[in-house]
């Protein structure tokens, strides 16, 4: 099930909210209710693999108890329990997500299909809930979090539907307080509803429409230049479009997750912070998918030594490991690994030249970040090396392709009303205006502006619902991770 569906909006969400508030007299019952609906939410899209989620909850619950039991008493046994948990979680991830990739790579290296592929389908959100569950046991081991003795409450942490399938990756200590200490707060409900609605509108009106353009351009590229010549302008429209589509697809999901969490009394950390205003690649990755970056920092980079190591080579090695894994986390393909290493290259270069402290005009910095990220997104989107190569060749007129075409102009003509709002919403114009309005003492201006916000959001929601009723294009890119 996806948030941007009528099943969710008309049935799942109202029933969940109704049940939640009717059980408002007991946090325990509310937690059980939320766990049940979360499992139903997941089972709707994965009727078989919901069992995998339940197994993950059970395994991590038991391992968490064992780690806690032996921590400080028998550190060796605690470490064994932790190791078993890490191996179990990563094994699940490996089997379902990476096994066929490694088999293909081995077969490719040998030159024939020696090892048969397993052909397992990727369970939705496996990368998210596996990392989340793993972080819980590690945090218990590190004394960063208290062990959760109630399996249902732990189940709620791992399976809570707002962030189950596409994050943010929530650390247990972030959510621990709210599991048993929530208080009804109408302000949370209004803030959460507002945030959820903004996310839904951005997803349907911006991300989905950008996706239409991007998918067609990539499919035409896939056919090869001898079948269809993708002009340079069209290729750049597709690259920019995908960059924006991915941002809105993912950040809007995070908005909806954070908003829904708030409605139910949970506070999740922000996952995006206007990454396109970054002035360096380093800063970009501190603003994009913050929860994943934090996870890798806490559980891979720092344990390896981080940057506080005697030898710069070790720091480079640590950064290499993080970025290779980050690429691999996104997908089992060489293009994702290449993409991870591409980002690594710029991060290291920036460190070497101390880019963030150099006196470079802001405009150039912003342009540099956007272009570098956009080119990286071509790798990210391409399913294979062939498509990546063809796409780059089209972008730089190396395929004998023309510069422009009627179809390229047509795409801009038909979709300017998506591209322009997308660009505007990717930079913090709205918070700036909101800040000015809040600070203003001019009551009529405040009233008119706030009324306009409400009217705009209502209009956006109505158009979004009409789009869903129409049954148009509605993918969720990060479901593939």
């Amino acid at each position, binding site marked *: 099930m996806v948030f941007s569906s009528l099943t969710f909006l008309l049935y799942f969400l109202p029933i969940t909210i109704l049940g939640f508030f009717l059980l408002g007299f007991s946090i325990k019952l509310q937690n059980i209710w939320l766990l049940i609906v979360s499992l139903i939410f997941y089972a709707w899209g994965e009727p078989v693999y919901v069992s995998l989620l339940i197994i993950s909850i059970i395994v991590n619950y038991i391992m968490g108890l064992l780690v806690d039991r032996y921590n400080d008493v028998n550190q060796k046994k605690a470490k064994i329990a932790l190791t078993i948990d890490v191996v179990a979680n990563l094994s699940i991830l490996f089997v379902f997500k990476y096994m066929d990739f490694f088999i293909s790579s081995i077969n490719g290296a040998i030159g024939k299909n020696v090892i048969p592929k397993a052909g397992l389908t990727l369970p939705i959100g496996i990368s998210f809930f596996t990392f989340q569950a793993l972080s819980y046991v590690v945090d218990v081991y590190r004394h960063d979090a208290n062990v959760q003795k109630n399996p249902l409450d732990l189940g709620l942490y791992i399976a809570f539907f707002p962030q189950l399938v596409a994050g943010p990756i929530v650390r247990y200590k972030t959510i621990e307080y709210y599991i048993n200490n929530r208080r009804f707060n109408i302000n949370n409900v209004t803030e959460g509803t507002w945030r959820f609605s903004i996310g839904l509108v951005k997803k349907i009106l911006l991300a989905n429409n950008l996706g*239409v353009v991007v998918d067609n351009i990539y499919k035409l590229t896939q056919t090869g230049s001898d079948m269809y010549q993708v002009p340079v302008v069209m290729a750049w429209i597709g690259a920019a479009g995908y960059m924006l589509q991915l941002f809105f697809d993912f950040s809007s999901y995070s908005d909806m997750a954070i908003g829904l969490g708030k409605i139910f009394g949970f506070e999740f950390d922000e996952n995006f912070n206007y990454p396109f205003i970054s002035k360096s690649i380093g800063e970009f990755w501190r603003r994009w998918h913050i929860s994943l970056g934090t996870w890798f920092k806490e559980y891979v980079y720092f344990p390896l030594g981080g940057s506080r190591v005697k030898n710069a080579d070790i720091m480079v090695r640590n950064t290499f490991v993080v970025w290779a894994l980050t690429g691999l986390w996104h997908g089992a393909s060489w293009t994702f690994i290449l993409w991870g290493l591409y980002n690594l290259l710029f991060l290291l270069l920036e460190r070497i030249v101390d880019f963030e402290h150099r006196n470079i005009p802001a405009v150039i910095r912003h342009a540099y970040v956007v272009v570098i990220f956009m080119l990286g997104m071509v790798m990210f989107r391409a399913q294979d090396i062939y498509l990546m190569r063809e796409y780059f060749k089209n972008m730089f007129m190396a395929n004998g392709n023309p510069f422009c075409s009627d179809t390229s102009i047509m795409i801009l003509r038909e979709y300017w009303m998506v591209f322009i709002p997308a660009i505007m919403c990717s930079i913090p114009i709205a918070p700036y205006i909101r800040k000015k309005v809040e600070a203003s003492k001019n009551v009529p201006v405040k009233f008119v502006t706030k009324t306009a916000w409400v009217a705009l959001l209502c209009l956006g929601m109505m158009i979004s619902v009409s789009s869903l009723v129409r049954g148009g294009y509605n993918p969720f890119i990060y479901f593939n991770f």
Partner: protein
Amino acid sequence: MKLIEKIKNIEHKEKYVYTAMFFAGMFSLSILSAKNSLPEIKKTATVATKQLQQKLKGEKVTATYAASATEDTTSSDDTSTLEAIVSTGIAHVDNNITTSVYKRYDWIEGYGTVNRLVGKKEIDGFSYALDKKNAYNSVNFWVTVPDHDYRRYSQQLLTLKNEVGKKGGKLIFMGFPNKFDSTWDSGYSGIPYNDYNNQMDELLLWNRRYGIDSIDFRTTLKNSGLTWKEMFYKTDHHWTGKAAFLAFKDLVGHLNDKYDAKLDPNGYYRNINNYEIKWHKNIFLGASGRSVGVSFANEGLEDFQTFKPKFDCNITWNKMKGNYTDTVLIPSKLKYDNLYESDPYGYYMNGVCQMDQIINHNNKDGLKVLWIRDSFASPMIVDSIPFCSQIDCVWGKYATDDYVKKAIKNTDYDYVFVAYGTVDLLPNFFHFYENDYPKKD
């Protein structure tokens, strides 16, 4: 603290207002839609449960979601595993929920209106686009990508011709006109309208190469002197009954000239005065329009043309017996409760069925004809009834290798007509002899 004081102290009052509206809207729409959705969901759940029971008992899964013979069942539900059955059931429930939303068509029209107001000419992710006449056209980015093997289709037609010829029959390929054609259309620059004329040209070229007798009805219309409005509809991809009649005339002339068929020697059946042409005002929303809505083009409903013989017939069509309007012409299609579920083009033979058979009791010595066709052929088939004793029809995507071979084996057809529009020159319309065509140079 008094209520007014409390309200005054609330920060972000606009979010409270919005939240109230959001929940009111969500719960209202949910309750109002549930009235339509729940019976459909119940039906879906019943079928899914039955499928699960049959699968668990090891029986053949016979319970199905399909509704009628005219439904496209080529993409039948996967019942191979328990997981597939559950997933399919869930997909059907999602579909039930989407199609039973309260005031569904108002929402669709609203979506069309918004697209029109922002000046868009295409809609639904390049599914449809308006041309400069404000007519709906299908759109496809692949229209200029040469990704089908028309030479092979022609070779398959050659095999079919040879097989039919063994029993003395003749094969004729007919190409129906493309609604979007540069002769009579101008579209907005850059939009990839479904203009498959090049593809039809290529197939006809290969047909000439392999000696397949072909008739190009695009030429018929271009030479007809008809206006665009007399040939096509704005909200539908089909041609009018009158345009089809002109094609029928050409077909008869062709059979007489080339095969000395001696059909209609007095020209009675080719005399348009022997047909009643009626325009039914403001009733028609074609297939494209039913998908997109009326508001996108903002031109309202169209007039629909019926083309009916003034003379009688005595036929059996799919177990119905009688005159034209008792059988192959269906006046009830012109009346409907729900505009978006209407199908006036179904006036002609219900649009297109998987398979049809017409037996003409008034001409037992008439021609035996097999039409491998799409929906464009339906009005022509009706026009051709007087000459035939038996007409077998199969919708191209159901003309499997087995079906065609069996049909030819069991019946000595005088003619086999393969009749497709430009948009149906696709692999799934050329299944016959797909593995045993002569690979000629």
